[in-house]
């Protein structure tokens, strides 16, 4: 329990800490999304500054509550910066953005370190740097900025309350003059008129641009403009105050200041208060219960069929009808539970924005990120597992794909590189595309590198090679095309892990590339990990399922057309020899093959293999149950499912089978 000891010496229950980290990460997502919109020497949108300010403010508060001093100090410093920006004491500078990115990274590192019980990095140097940024620049005087934050917030919340209460709020400006004074109109007259009109929420004197004096009044009233129309002659101008949605949300925020706040805002009709945060474990439990219900239903179905001949037809019809109702309702229930697990992919995309900016800055490249398909929904677990692979693909796109400005100009391309992230739903799967308009893949270079590293034999793929083979090569472990290990490619994970992660999720990875046009990676993932389309097959007296996305094709094979080459069995598949591995051999089952057998073609490129089985039965949607216990975690099995009778059916693990097939000694000589 030592890791839960905080800097204050308090012990914080780990469940609160979990909440704390979850909350902080959500804010970091918002922060990163907003930080990347900042551009040097441009005045950022007020809304963005407010949001950033508030996010840091919240992290500061939360960190204080759980006693993480580093996170508190850091977010305080960052909050100060945005306060300075908001009050226009500083402008957004290149240095400012850089230090901001550094600060956000540092904050993330501090949180990650704390979470894993490690010593967080030192923040002192950073705190000094940001202080210089905040104080080092000449404060710019701007009119109307004399109010302190607290007063401004107070007024804003008064305005908010008044508007909420159905009043109209007007801002009056009065510029006194000698002429007006001669007419008897001075500031106290104006004030008393306004007092008659309604309630004065605020009154401040201001200096006008030409050095004169003016007064600003904010008045809440139930009366409308016709009641003071005539005042225009008396040096008054006015404007009705309306609150934007953000301001409304903000004022709201001020109310419960200090309390635990909600997650990031989403635009659109989804109201914040309608969001419930649920532990994924509870959803898993719910899913389990649904799974049990499915099994029970299948048993009921069985019993009904068995007793049907003893029951009068009329009664039987009724029973059948009720039963099929139940079946439909159960399906809806299952879908409903699935849907709860779905989250928009936008969150992941937003994080990428920060990565692009970060890597581009390190590589001194100029890269724009385009995002579409923000709202595409995908299983929460899938999203989590896709985070690292996507990070890697995006980093690669920036550091390997996109050329330097000079190179691009020389090629007649626009100087700014472009990376596009897109997601969409297609049938039962989600497609994620990561595309860059960079230099594309150099097949020759990749092939020669692969040869020198011994990934392929010298005479293999002698010619150009297919895109698919190239993808296989760059996904082979230990392959990297960039000579020097730069920051971006040196850290994190390789393409091998991208591919493994995608395939581990029953998805597939493909690639399109064209010299000087760019490269596009296409990731195809099941909508949810829990339900997948599968082919059901039988061999050696057992029934197995194999997820359809990992199957290239199923072919019928005539037994007498199988060629035997020493220990290998080969067939001709699409004009080329293809090794065939008997499933029974991999799994130690005794099979009984008829004259016609089936080959399930898995894998791609040189790693293609056919798994030979006795019979293909059907295609079904299956509920995947993970197998976690070490006693039964065996190679080649990805999980289990049941087909309605409550009997576990093993789900085959395609990439395991491919690997098992290629380790010759392990399989053929077994």
């Amino acid at each position, binding site marked *: 329990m030592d890791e839960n000891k905080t800097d204050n010496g308090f012990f914080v229950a780990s469940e609160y800490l979990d909440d704390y980290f979850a909350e902080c990460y959500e804010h970091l997502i918002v922060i990163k999304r907003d930080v990347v919109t900042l551009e040097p020497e441009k005045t950022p949108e007020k809304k963005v500054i407010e949001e950033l300010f508030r996010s840091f403010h919240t992290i500061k508060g939360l960190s204080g509550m759980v006693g993480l001093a580093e996170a508190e100090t850091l977010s305080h410093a960052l909050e100060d910066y945005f306060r300075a920006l908001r009050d226009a004491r500083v402008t957004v500078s290149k240095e400012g953005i850089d230090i901001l990115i550094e600060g956000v990274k540092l904050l993330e590192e501090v949180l990650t370190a704390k979470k894993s019980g490690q010593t967080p990095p030192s923040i002192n140097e950073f705190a000094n740097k940001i202080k210089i940024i905040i104080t080092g620049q000449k404060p710019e005087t701007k009119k109307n900025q004399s109010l302190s934050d607290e007063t401004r917030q107070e007024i804003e919340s008064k305005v908010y309350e008044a508007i909420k209460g159905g009043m109209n709020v007007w801002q009056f400006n009065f510029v006194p003059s000698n002429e007006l004074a001669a007419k008897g109109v001075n500031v106290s007259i104006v004030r008393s008129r306004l007092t008659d009109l309604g309630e004065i929420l605020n009154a401040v004197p201001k200096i006008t641009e030409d050095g004169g004096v003016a007064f600003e009044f904010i008045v809440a009233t139930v009366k409308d403009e016709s009641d003071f129309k005539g005042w225009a002659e008396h040096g008054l101008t006015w404007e009705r105050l309306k609150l934007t949605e953000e301001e409304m949300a903000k004022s709201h925020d001020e109310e419960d200041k200090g309390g635990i706040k909600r997650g990031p805002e989403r635009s659109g009709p989804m109201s914040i208060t309608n969001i419930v945060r649920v532990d994924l474990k509870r959803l898993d439990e719910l899913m389990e219960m649904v799974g*049990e219900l499915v099994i029970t239903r299948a048993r009921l179905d069985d019993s009904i069929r068995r007793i049907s001949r003893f029951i009068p037809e009329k009664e039987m019809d009724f029973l059948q009808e009720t039963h099929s109702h139940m079946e439909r309702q159960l399906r809806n229930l299952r879908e409903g539970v699935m849907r709860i697990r779905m989250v928009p992919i936008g969150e992941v995309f937003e994080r990428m924005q920060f990565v692009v900016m970060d890597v581009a800055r390190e590589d001194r490249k100029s890269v724009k990120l385009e995002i579409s398909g923000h709202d595409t929904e995908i299983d929460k677990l899938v999203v989590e597992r896709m985070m690292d692979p996507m990070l890697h693909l995006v980093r690669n796109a920036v550091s390997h794909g996109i050329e330097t400005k000079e190179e691009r100009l020389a090629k007649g391309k626009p100087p700014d590189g472009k990376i596009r992230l897109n997601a969409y739903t297609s049938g039962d799967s989600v497609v994620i595309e990561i595309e860059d308009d960079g230099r594309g893949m150099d097949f020759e270079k990749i092939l020669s590198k692969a040869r020198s590293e011994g990934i392929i034999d010298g005479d293999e793929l002698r010619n150009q090679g297919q895109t698919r083979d190239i993808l296989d090569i760059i996904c082979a472990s230990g392959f990297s095309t960039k000579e020097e290990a730069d920051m971006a490619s040196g850290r994190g994970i390789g393409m091998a892990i991208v591919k493994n992660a995608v395939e581990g999720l029953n998805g597939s990875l493909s690639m399109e590339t064209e010299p000087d046009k760019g490269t596009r990676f296409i990731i195809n993932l099941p909508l949810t990990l829990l339900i997948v389309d599968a082919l059901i097959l039988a061999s050696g007296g057992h029934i197995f399922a194999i997820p359809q996305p990992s199957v290239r094709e199923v072919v019928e094979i005539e037994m007498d057309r199988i060629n035997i080459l020493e220990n290998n069995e080969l067939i001709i598949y699409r004009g080329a020899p293809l090794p065939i591995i008997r499933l029974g051999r991999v799994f130690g089952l005794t099979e009984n093959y008829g004259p016609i057998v089936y080959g399930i073609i898995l894998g791609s490129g040189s790693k293609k293999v056919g798994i030979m089985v006795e019979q293909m039965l059907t295609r079904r949607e299956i509920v995947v149950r993970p197998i976690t216990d070490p*006693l039964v975690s065996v*190679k*080649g099995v990805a999980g*289990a499912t049941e087909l309605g009778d*409550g009997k*576990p059916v093993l789900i085959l693990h395609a990439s395991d089978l491919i690997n098992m097939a290629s380790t010759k000694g392990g399989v053929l000589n077994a």
Partner: protein
Amino acid sequence: MPEETREKENYILFKLMGTTYGIKSNDVQQMEMIEHITPVPNAPAFVEGLVFLRGQVIPAINLRLRFGFERVDYDIKTRLIVVQKGTRRVGLIVDNAREFVAIPKDVITPPPEAISGLSGEYLEGVATLGDRLVLILNIEEVLNFAEAVKPYIQENN
């Protein structure tokens, strides 16, 4: 010592090869009749396979094989005792299981040192109940993967 003040713990008793064993009832989640078990290829021999339990797939261990006894066919008395230790849930197949008893702590003694062989490691103690001997199992040891799979690891790699 008066009966009420003796410290007791609840145990589920089951039989294997005519010997009575006890597992702390806190470790036992439920008991089931044997239904369908799907064999898992390349798993250790004492692992009979997978069973579905409340929507979860869990391994079923044949305790006879785990303890090095011979296999017998399942019959009407065969039971699956589902134990839970940490996050692991495993089913133990035993000859029969019926009794639920409170055993006073003071009748449990450490296993005699003379007990040798496989069983020694997962015996937590021996309880004497009247003229009956109950071997108290250490479930963690029974489920210990590394120890249990030692003979199979070379085979599968």
